[in-house]
């Protein structure tokens, strides 16, 4: 069985407010996924449902082929590191590691201790006395060292500096190469993590808008810049996700340009510049919400 998580028609509502609407996707074994989207899009809600911390209103959810709720066979294979991971105030870092070793069957103590050194964490200091960044680093150490078959990092780096974040990416790739597992990274820092991802899932306003291979997305969209009339002519019938007029010029972001399109653009004297994954997602999530507002008016 290759599917670690299978979600079909997942919906979550609180009274009249629907926060997750008919979301379906699956997570395959041993891939690194990016779960991306704007604030309040519903990413954390989905992760809470996968990890059995929240009941779905409707829809089907299977983790390791079973229902996750109160299911020890499933839950001890999952490690979920939350945005503001909380450990008891009176614990020392070393206590957190020891407790984690009890919970996670694959927990590697030696590796955890080497990570503690890498992140310069004081083993004997109490959780209460740690800075925000240090707390986040403790979460990352637990997340990596637990080597859980499904490891989920939900915005794990609150207060973490750029050096420590880079260290996290390094260690993640290193350890993942040696001990492959399914990893979900949920983050706003798309530019930083995009190269680590094999697959990208984008949630916007509680709906799934992208579920695709990261490499297929890269280079998919491009910005076309040139005289407004020529650009208008070129983009008719194409999937345009944003347009910004600038004087007599027009800059339009278009998805799915073929090589014939590219040579035609060149003939027309239009400038084509490819956009990054982060820019693509910004455009997509931006234009959709704008579209919503227009529809509401």
């Amino acid at each position: 069985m290759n599917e670690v998580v299978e979600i079909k028609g997942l919906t979550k509502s609180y009274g009249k407010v629907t926060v997750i609407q008919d979301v379906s996707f699956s997570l395959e074994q041993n891939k690194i996924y990016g779960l991306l989207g704007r604030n309040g899009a519903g990413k954390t809600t989905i992760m809470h449902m996968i990890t059995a911390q929240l009941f779905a209103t409707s829809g089907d959810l299977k983790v390791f082929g079973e229902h996750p709720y109160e299911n020890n066979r499933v839950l001890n294979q999952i490690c979920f590191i939350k945005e503001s991971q909380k450990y008891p105030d009176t614990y020392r870092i070393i206590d957190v590691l020891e407790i984690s070793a009890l919970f996670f069957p694959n927990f590697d103590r030696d590796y955890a201790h080497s990570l503690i050194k890498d992140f310069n964490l004081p083993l004997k200091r109490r959780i209460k006395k740690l800075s925000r960044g240090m707390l986040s680093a403790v979460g990352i150490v637990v997340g990596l060292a637990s080597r859980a078959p499904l490891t989920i990092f939900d915005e794990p780096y609150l207060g973490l500096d750029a050096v420590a974040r880079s260290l996290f990416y390094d260690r993640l790739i290193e350890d993942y190469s040696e001990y492959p597992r399914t990893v979900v990274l949920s983050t706003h820092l798309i530019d930083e993590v995009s190269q680590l991802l094999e697959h990208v899932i984008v949630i916007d306003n509680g709906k799934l808008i992208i579920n695709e291979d990261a490499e297929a997305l890269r280079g998919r969209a491009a910005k076309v810049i040139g005289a407004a009339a020529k650009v208008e002519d070129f983009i008719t019938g194409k999937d345009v996700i944003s347009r910004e007029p600038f004087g007599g010029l027009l800059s339009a972001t278009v998805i799915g340009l073929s090589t014939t399109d590219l040579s035609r653009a060149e003939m027309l004297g239009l400038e084509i510049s490819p956009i990054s994954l982060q820019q693509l997602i910004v455009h997509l999530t931006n234009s959709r919400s704008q579209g919503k507002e227009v529809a509401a008016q």
Partner: protein
Amino acid sequence: MGSLMDDTRPIFMQIAERIENDIIEVTLLEESQVPSTNQFAIFYQINPATAAKGVNLLVDQGILYKKRGIGMFVASGARAVLMEKRKEQFYEQYVVTMVREAEKLGITLDQLTKMIQRGDNRS
């Protein structure tokens, strides 16, 4: 984040290009071993599956070959093949674009040839 990869193009293609460059510049010799996909992944901070895709692209083209249980090696004759391929790309990328730009600026073919000769003298 000090990234070595350009996020606007598929990364596996960039990995393949880097290996090709190393072979053309003789930093990677024919019949020598190339780093493993995991080493590529760690060095460039990229997903190992992506690195593998880049390496496999060159295996498909016969530039690299696999020795079972040992790793990937540069095929003999790979450099000559790549040089040929790059010369064609050079024509497409530089010559065609240059001639087009020259036309736009009203530079005649004769003037262009002289410019190239002048450039050649300077280097």
